[in-house]
């Protein structure tokens, strides 16, 4: 690993002792000793075990559910059906379309219908077999094409158009006019197959009812705050009487971000039986929970000048959403949102449609909605470079969206280290001596990407902070740090400790971190959208600075030294001008406690306001964007089509590593997961016309990379501090995955001259393309076209360069159907804008930029 300071980055600020240094995680010891308790490791006295009966049909009306035999089975304590849980829930306010147990209709193989609580798991499973369900099968909707064309049966009674859940049509600038000025207009079609998170830990939950009318649930969830809301809603309980404790997640990757049926069911069963109830899903059931990558069919058309400069882009995506809404509205917008943040796209059109199908619901897997369009865009650019005879690295380099700018779709870019990422990977990989120069069968490919460091808007619109941190300092010199964030393995608990230790001048080991407990910790919205370091990190800075100032004031009066001269380091508080004048941190806290009483502080963080004001502007804004560039080297066996990847170079602009060990871990893990997606992972179904049964709901058959498939990785971290980030830091958990898939696909082309315009790039696809090429046909495997679909009229938004104000053009001739009007204030949704009144003017944009520059400038 190498660290490179990007050109033009601010000079290093005051010396950091903790931040930026490789170190252990606060929970590392518990993780290597088996001490750490995951949800399924928890046991309570008189605990019952829950099993769910799941649908064996993809789409059917429930005619009758008879639980008589199950209830009479010895050892069964309670049986529950959807009749007892009438209130729907879902992660987004616009798609509250799930029931804890299906009431009238089952929508995919695996949809839960009934639940049993019994004295052990075996009895519960036996009882499930004794529940009699009579179904009336309905035709299944099994593909994007079905979802667009079949107007009945309807999977849900809401949505933008029949089985089309969500559709979006936006235009920024004048795409057609700009295209007309291009030297080359190229159009390509791509397909990205669905895949799943496959966390090593199966989802588990334990609920405990207390006779004073309160419920506690321990659950492997990435979003305790949203689970809290869902449980209170469905169980009709005051939220203050519901306590959600997020246990350490044994891998999440987005797969534990929705409130799930089983979580609500164990709470309901605990209330019904008065006993603790636990469930641990089988691996097969984890495949049914899914919420993974949407299968996505995409068309991209770009106009470029001879020198490769982009003049306009037109992007269309069709998403196979599965049976429920999940995060799908946001996912749909995300397939169109971030194309503009890497390369300057002066005029941009995006149309997207998400359909319901009778499959497990898709949702947010690492990269949420952006890996699919990123694959399409980066392969498409590779083809354009090839067609124009340009070096694809240089062509990307010459198109960069500038730092401190606003994109055509009104996303505000701060620091932008992509140029440095490209330069670093090109140098390290010896790109110039390899690209188009390696022997047949070997090749290199390049791709870039960007990702949000946290979503700019909350899922439920409100003006409260996105993250809160509370500190308790006491006379022992110990500090407790409370935050609602959830550690899913990325190290978010550790980040809190590092930041507080840095500011208070103590060691991370002196800090007790308490997280993910809705009774004890201030709200943090959850471990999704790469938001935790950015948001809980900034909240921790504010809390720690407030605590430091309070302690400093007590010490200053005692020592007769101005507070501004005191420094906190090495577990001491001392005079900068005379290090001997000072005291231990514990003594300093004692002074503060004597002077002010109990010492504590709070900090919170709310992202800055985004300049976009149009409908749809809610998805894409972020306090800061990370950037990555990957170069992959591949070996393709032309006899078998098998692609091997010996090495990937990946440069990631992380702003500032809080702990480089963890950042490198995120990069390597992202490369691994991306490699799985491009080489082998796919969530597919058999018998599409009728049964829509998952092809392989097991770890053996759902192929994922073992040690033998994993490549060597050279990580280069670009430290281009962002003024919004804690100590300048940006995200690392999702962005580095994005360029891996297209870099490998582009390398396959360099190796053997064929294009696989699909993910995964399986051997049979490579082989087919090679054989076609030998027969004189186009050496390509991939979809030929996208379906004809009548999108709503475009919402037209003038770009910043056109002097726009962030809103739709006034007096446009058309409006969208289904209530998608352009009046947008305070809309309550993840996908939709929620902004306050007012327009964004050019002056305001400049003001916002200078505000962001000054905000953290003092650090």
């Amino acid at each position: 690993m190498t660290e490179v300071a990007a050109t033009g980055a601010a000079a290093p600020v005051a010396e950091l002792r903790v931040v930026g240094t490789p170190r252990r995680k606060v929970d590392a010891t518990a993780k290597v000793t088996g001490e750490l308790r995951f949800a399924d490791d928890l046991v309570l006295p008189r605990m019952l075990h829950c099993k769910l009966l799941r649908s064996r049909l993809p789409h059917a009306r429930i005619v009758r559910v008879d639980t008589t035999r199950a209830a009479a089975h010895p050892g069964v304590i309670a049986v529950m059906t959807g009749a007892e849980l009438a209130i729907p829930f879902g992660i987004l306010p616009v798609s509250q379309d799930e029931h804890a147990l299906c009431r009238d209709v089952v929508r995919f193989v695996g949809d839960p219908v009934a639940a049993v609580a019994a004295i052990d798991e075996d009895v519960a499973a036996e009882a499930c077999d004794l529940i009699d369900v009579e179904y009336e099968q309905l035709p299944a909707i099994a593909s994007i094409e079905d979802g667009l064309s079949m107007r009945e049966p309807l999977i849900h009674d809401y949505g933008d158009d029949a089985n089309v859940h969500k559709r979006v049509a936006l235009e920024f600038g004048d795409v057609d006019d700009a295209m007309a000025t291009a030297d080359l207009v190229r159009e390509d079609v791509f397909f990205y197959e669905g895949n799943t998170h496959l966390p090593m830990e199966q989802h588990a939950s334990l609920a405990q009812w207390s006779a004073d009318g309160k419920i506690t649930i321990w659950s492997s969830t990435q979003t305790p705050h949203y689970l809290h809301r869902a449980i209170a809603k469905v169980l009709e309980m005051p939220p203050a009487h519901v306590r959600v404790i997020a246990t350490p997640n044994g891998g999440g990757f987005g797969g534990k971000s929705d409130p799930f049926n089983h979580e609500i069911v164990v709470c309901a069963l605990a209330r019904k039986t008065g006993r603790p109830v636990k469930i641990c899903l089988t691996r097969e059931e984890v495949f049914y929970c899914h919420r993974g990558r949407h299968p996505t069919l995409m068309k991209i058309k770009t106009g470029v000048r001879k020198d490769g400069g982009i003049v306009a882009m037109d992007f269309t995506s069709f998403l196979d959403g599965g049976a429920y809404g999940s995060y799908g509205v946001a996912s749909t917008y995300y397939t169109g949102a971030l194309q503009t943040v890497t390369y300057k796209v002066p005029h941009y059109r995006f149309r997207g449609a998400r359909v319901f199908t009778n499959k497990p619901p898709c949702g947010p897997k690492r990269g949420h909605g952006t890996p699919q369009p990123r694959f399409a865009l980066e392969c498409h650019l590779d083809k354009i470079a090839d067609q124009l005879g340009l070096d694809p690295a240089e062509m990307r380099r010459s198109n960069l969206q500038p730092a401190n700018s606003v994109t055509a779709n009104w996303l505000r870019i701060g620091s932008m280290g992509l140029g440095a990422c490209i330069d670093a990977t090109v140098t390290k990989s010896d790109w110039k001596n390899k690209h188009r120069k390696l022997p047949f069968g070997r090749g290199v490919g390049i791709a870039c990407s960007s990702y949000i460091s946290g979503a700019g808007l909350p899922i439920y619109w409100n003006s409260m902070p996105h993250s809160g941190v509370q500190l308790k300092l006491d006379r022992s010199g110990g500090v407790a740090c409370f935050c609602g964030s959830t550690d899913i393995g990325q190290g978010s608990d550790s980040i809190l400790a590092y930041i507080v230790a840095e500011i208070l001048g103590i060691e991370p080991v002196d800090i007790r971190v308490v997280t993910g407990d809705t009774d004890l910790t201030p709200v943090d919205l959850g471990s999704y959208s790469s938001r935790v370091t950015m948001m809980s990190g900034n909240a921790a800075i504010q809390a720690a600075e407030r605590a430091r100032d309070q302690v400093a004031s007590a010490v200053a009066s005692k020592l007769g030294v101005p507070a501004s001269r005191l420094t906190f380091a090495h577990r001491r508080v001392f005079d900068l001008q005379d290090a001997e004048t000072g005291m231990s941190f514990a003594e300093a806290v004692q002074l503060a406690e004597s002077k002010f009483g109990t010492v504590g502080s709070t900090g919170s963080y709310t992202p800055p306001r985004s300049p976009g004001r149009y409908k749809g502007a809610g998805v894409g804004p972020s306090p800061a964007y990370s950037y990555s560039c990957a170069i992959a080297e591949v070996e393709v066996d032309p006899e078998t089509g098998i692609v091997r990847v010996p090495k990937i170079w990946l440069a990631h602009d992380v702003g500032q590593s809080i702990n480089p060990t963890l950042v490198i871990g995120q990069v390597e893990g992202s490369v691994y997961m991306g490699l799985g997606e491009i080489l082998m992972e796919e969530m597919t179904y058999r018998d599409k016309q009728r049964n829509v049964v998952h092809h392989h709901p097991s770890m053996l058959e759902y192929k994922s990379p073992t040690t033998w498939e994993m490549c060597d990785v050279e990580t280069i971290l670009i430290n281009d501090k962002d003024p919004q980030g804690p100590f300048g830091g940006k995200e690392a958990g999702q962005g580095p995955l994005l360029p891996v898939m297209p870099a490998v696909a582009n390398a396959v082309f360099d190796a053997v001259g064929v294009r696989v315009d699909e993910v995964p790039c399986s051997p049979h696809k490579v082989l087919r393309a090679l054989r076609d090429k030998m027969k004189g046909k186009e050496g390509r495997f991939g979809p030929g076209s996208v379906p004809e679909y009548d999108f709503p009229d475009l919402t037209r938004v003038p770009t910043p360069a056109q002097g726009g104000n962030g809103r739709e053009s006034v007096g446009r001739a058309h409006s969208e159907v289904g209530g998608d009007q352009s009046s947008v204030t305070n809309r309550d949704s993840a996908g939709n804008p929620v902004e306050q009144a007012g327009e964004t003017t050019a002056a305001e944009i400049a003001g916002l930029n200078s505000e962001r520059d000054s905000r953290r400038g003092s650090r």
Partner: protein
Amino acid sequence: MSHPVSIEPPARLKIQAAFIVNGEHCEVAFAPHKTLLEVLREDLALTGTKHGCELGECGTCTIIVDGTPILSCLALAASYANRRIDTVEGMAADGALHPLQDAFAELGAAQCGYCTPGFLMTARALLDATPRPSRNEIKDALSGNLCRCTGYLKIYEAVELASERIARAGAAVHD
């Protein structure tokens, strides 16, 4: 609340067996169909051993029996009576981490940590048999353990570091 639907316990005969777990003799009664994984976790409260598939696909439940790593989810507990079983809970000795545990913690080889006990057990069996393994020998030994977080690279590095430290400590003892 109302009375339970049924208070009659199911007819389940338990069998009794003894194991030597992490060096300690223990006797336990359990349902005869239970796997070693289930007996360890549910009847002996040793939840350090995890599960990811319970079908022998992921390696997460790896434990060491008489020096050999096995998948405890595929092992019928009754057939392992009186055998010597090592789990992650027995790795740290006298309050100090085993060099493998220490290296995993230091290098970030445990991200979510869920697969970690299985990797530690497999790696320990490897180092016991092959104290200075090559990178390929490490990859080979660990190829039955899946990890979704790390991409394995930090795990290789941790095994190499531990191997080096064990060798150095051994050399120091002989000096």
